[in-house]
């Protein structure tokens, strides 16, 4: 194929979308990620590492840093530009839902047929292609500044490039298997990035938790994929979802398992797939990994929470909606089992997570729970058949949540900056006494410190190591060993730069961050009319209300749960903004918090401004045409552009829900009400240093429950983690393998050893007897020997057999093999 036709043929172009970031990943990993080795005590070494007592550690070189960042940015910009071209193509096509952009090729042979792998751009993909690359680009730019001082910035860029590449692969995939490839690679990236600061226990534990929790869901999802493939012989979206005959057949064949429930094949497959989303999009009961994912650097949080990971989960169920709803008719209030599951889990999660968010003090944790809650909005919306509304909220949420995360990252960065400032000031004033005191307060730390000091002085430990290393392992020359034993970093009292109670008044020193955060927050809270969040949330509520009016129980449930959750959302958002930015600084650190100047500050504010723009205007594409005044402005053709465009993805475009003023009023009420409640508690009279959170008194005994996230983590550790660790070590290995199987074998071995011993003794007696007896009584034995030579062949054979057995056993015993068994 020649290159020009490849470029000019619109059907091939989407193949290039993931290529940029994936190439960037390869180039950075293989070529540009270069380190130099410096002592850990060096000033160059960033603040995110423990103390290594002057050991040589790799730090990314300046050239590598610059080149890697540039390569990463080029990769994502390339993806963005290609995406824009593809989107332009897609918009130019009439009836994109029918005339999709697609191409595919053989991936592997399956008997006489083949499995095809390819790309597909239909309306749903198109809107994802607008959101994902844009959000990713913002995150990349932001990371330039945010990770500027990390000794592993190159690695960071390679991993987020892979992350973005995987997400884009998932978006353009034309079949469920390729989607799953992107899905899992993203899981790996999130694991690697959550545990990016891998020395920290909390970080690697969070990473393992994220990977394991999502894997619980992924293996179930894999079954769903296998089942779907087995039932239809294909995994192509078009072949399955755009084919009424296939869908009907799936909806009418009984499920292979759980026959008693009366589910159809489509339902069981759908439930397996929804479970995949419950894990990936952190829905109850698999939500536990997402809050811990905050351990990663903040751009990663934005990546996971907005642009990629969790969006992928919702994207998948939106994509598979025709299958999930097969057999049901949401317009008539008949929900298929997967839809029931989605509406119940989604609605519950939306409210559940919102209540937890109210009692969190960590600025990122609040956002994490708000993400879980908002994802619940989308999942439950899809559960009651509000296909468009779910997709719409997915897009708007991505913008404002990416914004909020990055803005909170700026806050944290600013706080760390302030901490640094204060710390220097402190050290000047008090000298080393303070540090010594700190030592005493943190025994664990000082222990490590002492160990490190011993290693530095190079006496006893080094000698021990030298003994063991043996030949051929010359210990590395330990250059740069600092004789200076005092290491001032990392020993000071623990200051949490993410605790909102350490903040306050940040609007003064970080104005851009404040205003952008405010816009993002209002959008999250659904501030009426001017924010994107309002329009998408209103649409979900509108759909739910419509169903409620028709008397559908699920819709009513969703409406009530989401309305309450929306109120809480507005409330905790106001609480967060009030605690962080309003009032006066509650700590010295907060007083000096700032982003500084220069490239770091620019790269960390520019993306916020871009996203803030979208967090406001992205909603106007989905205004209901019958909405007073605004409807005629933004949806002049009698339909909202978003609805009309995305609806075409489905075989039959969903009917627009008639406008009803009640849900709009509810949206107004919960949003403004929540904001007002937050205003009363945290804004009108801002908290001063040392003041207790008003929530503590108001909620009373409920507060600790919320604060501890309903103790779900503790429950899981007791019920799942500990027992499986115990089972693995004690039952699967020690009891079954070592005990039963090997025990049985060694029993056999022992029986044979016993027989062997018996024969050996017999033999010793015999040989000794013969040996001693020969000289003195040779003649005496004449007759006996004559008896031996009986001429009977059976008797000879018996002697040979005994001799062979004896020799064999002697051999076995003298080599000690049987005794070696423990």
């Amino acid at each position, binding site marked *: 194929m020649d290159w020009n036709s490849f470029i000019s043929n619109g059907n091939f172009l989407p193949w290039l979308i993931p290529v940029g970031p994936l190439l960037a990943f390869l180039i950075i990993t293989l070529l540009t990620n270069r380190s130099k080795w410096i002592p850990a005590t060096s000033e160059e070494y960033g603040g995110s590492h423990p103390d290594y007592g002057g050991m040589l550690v790799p730090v990314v070189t300046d050239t590598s840093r610059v080149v890697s960042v540039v390569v990463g940015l080029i990769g994502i910009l390339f993806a963005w530009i290609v995406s824009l071209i593809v989107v332009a193509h897609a918009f130019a096509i009439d009836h994109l839902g029918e005339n999709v952009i697609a191409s595919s090729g053989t991936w592997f042979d399956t008997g006489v047929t083949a499995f095809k792998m390819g790309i597909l751009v239909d309306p749903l993909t198109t809107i994802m292609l607008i959101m994902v690359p844009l959000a990713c680009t913002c995150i990349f730019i932001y990371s330039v500044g945010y990770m500027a001082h990390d000794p592993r910035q190159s690695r960071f860029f390679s991993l987020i490039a892979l992350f973005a590449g995987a997400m884009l692969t998932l978006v353009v995939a034309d079949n469920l298997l390729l989607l799953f490839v992107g899905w*899992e690679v993203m899981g790996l990236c999130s694991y690697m990035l959550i545990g990016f600061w891998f020395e920290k226990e909390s970080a690697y534990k969070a990473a393992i938790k994220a990977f394991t929790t999502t894997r619980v869901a992924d293996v179930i999802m894999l079954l769903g994929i296998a089942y779907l493939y087995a039932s239809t012989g294909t995994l192509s979206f078009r072949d399955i979802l755009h084919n009424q005959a296939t869908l009907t057949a799936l909806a009418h064949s009984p499920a292979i398992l759980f026959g008693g429930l009366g589910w159809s094949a489509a339902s069981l497959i759908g439930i397996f797939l929804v479970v995949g989303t419950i894990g990936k999009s952190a829905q109850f009961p698999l939500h536990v990994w997402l809050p811990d994912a905050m351990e990663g650097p903040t751009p990663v949080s934005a990546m996971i929470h907005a642009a990629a990971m969790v969006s992928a989960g919702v994207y998948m169920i939106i994509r598979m909606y025709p299958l999930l709803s097969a057999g049901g008719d949401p317009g008539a209030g008949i929900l298929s089992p997967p839809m029931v599951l989605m509406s119940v889990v989604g609605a519950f999660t939306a409210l559940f997570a919102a209540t937890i968010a109210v009692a969190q003090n960590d600025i990122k944790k609040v956002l994490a729970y708000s993400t879980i809650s908002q994802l619940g909005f989308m999942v439950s919306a899809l559960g009651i058949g509000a296909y468009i509304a779910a997709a719409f909220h997915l897009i708007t949420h991505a913008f404002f949540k990416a914004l909020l995360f990055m803005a909170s990252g700026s806050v944290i960065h600013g706080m760390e900056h302030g901490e640094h400032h204060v710390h220097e000031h402190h050290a000047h004033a008090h000298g080393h006494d303070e540090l010594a005191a700190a030592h005493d307060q943190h025994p664990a730390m000082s222990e490590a410190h002492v160990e490190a000091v011993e290693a530095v002085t190079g006496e006893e430990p080094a000698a021990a190591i030298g003994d063991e290393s043996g030949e051929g392992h010359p210990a*590395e020359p330990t250059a740069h060993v600092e004789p200076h034993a005092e290491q001032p970093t990392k020993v000071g009292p623990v200051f949490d730069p993410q605790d909102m109670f350490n903040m306050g008044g940040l609007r003064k020193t970080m104005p851009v961050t404040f205003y952008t955060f405010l816009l993002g927050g209002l959008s999250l809270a659904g501030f009426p009319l001017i924010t994107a969040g309002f329009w998408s949330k209103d649409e979900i509520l509108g759909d739910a209300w419509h169903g409620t009016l028709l008397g559908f129980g699920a819709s009513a449930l969703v409406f009530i749960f989401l309305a309450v959750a929306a109120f809480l959302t507005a409330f905790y958002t106001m609480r967060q903004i009030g605690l962080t930015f309003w009032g006066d600084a509650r700590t010295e650190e907060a007083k000096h918090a700032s982003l500084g100047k220069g490239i770091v500050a620019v790269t960390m504010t520019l993306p916020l401004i871009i996203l803030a723009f979208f967090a406001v205007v992205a909603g106007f594409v989905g205004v209901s045409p019958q909405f007073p005044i605004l409807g005629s402005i933004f949806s002049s053709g009698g339909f909202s552009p978003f609805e009309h465009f995305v609806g075409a993805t489905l075989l039959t475009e969903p009917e627009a829900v008639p406008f009803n003023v009640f849900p709009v009023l509810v949206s107004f009420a919960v949003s403004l009400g929540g904001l007002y409640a937050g205003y009363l508690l945290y804004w009108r009279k801002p908290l001063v240093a040392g003041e207790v959170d008003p929530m503590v008194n108001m909620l009373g005994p409920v507060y600790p429950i919320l604060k501890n996230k309903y103790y779900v983590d503790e429950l899981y550790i007791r019920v799942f983690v500990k027992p499986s660790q115990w089972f693995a070590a004690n039952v699967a290995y020690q009891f079954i393998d070592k005990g039963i199987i090997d025990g049985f074998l060694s029993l056999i071995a022992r029986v044979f050893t016993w027989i062997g011993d018996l024969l050996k003794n017999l033999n010793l007696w015999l040989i000794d007897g013969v040996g001693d007896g020969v000289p003195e009584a040779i003649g005496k034995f004449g007759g006996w020997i004559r008896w031996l030579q009986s001429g009977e062949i059976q008797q000879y054979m018996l002697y040979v057999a005994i001799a062979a057995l004896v020799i064999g056993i002697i051999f076995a015993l003298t080599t000690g093999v049987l005794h070696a068994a423990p």
Partner: protein
Amino acid sequence: MTIFGTIDVLSFLVFAPAIGALIVLLLPQNKWLARWVALAFAAILCGVSVAVFFAYNHAVPDYQFVIQTKWFDLLGSSWHIGIDGISATMILLTGLLTPLAVLVSFEVEDRVNAHMALILFFATGLFGVFVAMDLMVFFLFYELSLVPMYFIIDQWGGPNRKYASTKFFIYSMGGSLGMLLATQLIGFTAHTFDIQQLTTIWPAFNGANGTFLGIPIETVKGLAFAGFFVAFCIKVPVWPFHTWLPDAHSEAPTAGSMLLAGVMLKLGAYGFLRLVIPLFPDVWISQISIFGLSISVAGLFAVLAVLGIVLGAFAAFGQTDIKRLVAYSSVNHMGFVALGLAVAALAYAQSYFKVAGIDPQTAILAMNGAVFQMFNHGLSSAGMFLLAGAVYHKTHTRDMTQYGGFWVKAPIYGGIFIFTSMASLGLPGLNGFVSEFLVVRGAWPVFTVLTLIAMIGLLFTGGYILKGIRAVLHGPFNMHWRDYHLEIDLREFVAIAPLMVLMLVTGLAPNWILSVINASVTRIFGG
């Protein structure tokens, strides 16, 4: 096909390693000479294997490069060799891993000539099995492969090597005993050892009026089946015949573990699909009753496979010894091979007796998955053992609790370790995923509940892989290793780089090898 003018290429693959071994053994006792000569031999083998793989034309039915000459006329056995797509894949795997194992065993300092000679000699056994089209030839090389591996473990292994090597040897011999008897029985009754002829003669064999030597024919076939079944179950290893494996793998030197896990386990699976499936359709399909539950033999095999997947994963998760962890991962991964084979066995039996049952497409996908998984596990387990050996060689301990934070001092090693672990985990985009997916797809409509249970194993595959990464790379750096060299050596890097490239390429575009497997498998099921 011939090379060097007149030499038959498959015979060359079988005998060249043995000759190479002899030459290396007779070389002057110079470490470097022995190493490089062995490496040169292994590289030639690798080149020839690759050439054979690509010269094999999967569009053409039947065995290729077939040679049949007189050998053991009296017994009805002949030197009959040839390959189909499945053997071609296994030959490629053996050819690829042998030079890498030689390269890795450059780390051996003691009696280098003998060590290198044994590794080469081992290749003779493997190639012999994979090209054999005669049951006696098969058995001969199957046993032959045992000897060098026994000595490699016994002489160059870890602290507990005597126990491990003896256990390995006795276990394997225990299996071989029944196999030998079964081989003789089949050869005796069919008057030939030719496998292709046997696949039609033996299943149709009905003795005299349904008895053979006065014993009912079902019993005879059942016993013959058991002989092969146990032997191959031990080799694969299928749960509960697996307990030799953690000991042998963890005590073997790095190259030994690589070859053991990489190719030797495949002998068992290969035996299943070459012999046990085609020879015993009647046994596979027969129902047996355990505790009142009626289950077909193939179903029982699937149960054992799933137990291997689940309990293997759990046992790996319960380890603190890194090589034992990787060893148990083999039990886990080979369980998927066994599961695919169980589906194939049942489907083959059903098609043999023309009873309705498994959709041929399902059987094809399951068997494709099983064979492909054999290849993929060869790559990833060899890679994992190489990396486990690399860290053991540098720290002289296999106890993971003494590691920690090695990623700080060994960033390249860390990256490679994670990459290879992910291939082993079956991350989509890398090789293992495709084969596991195919097996799951194939097994789901046939053994639905078992497949569901197998997912627990797949979940804990993640568990033990992450545990390994966590223990070796993550956490604060253990200052005990402050002055140790931990970064991967250039030699080790050269040895693992081809594996990594293959893992990635095979994961992204599996058809270069899957098309070859698929063509042969499709023919087995009459597609």
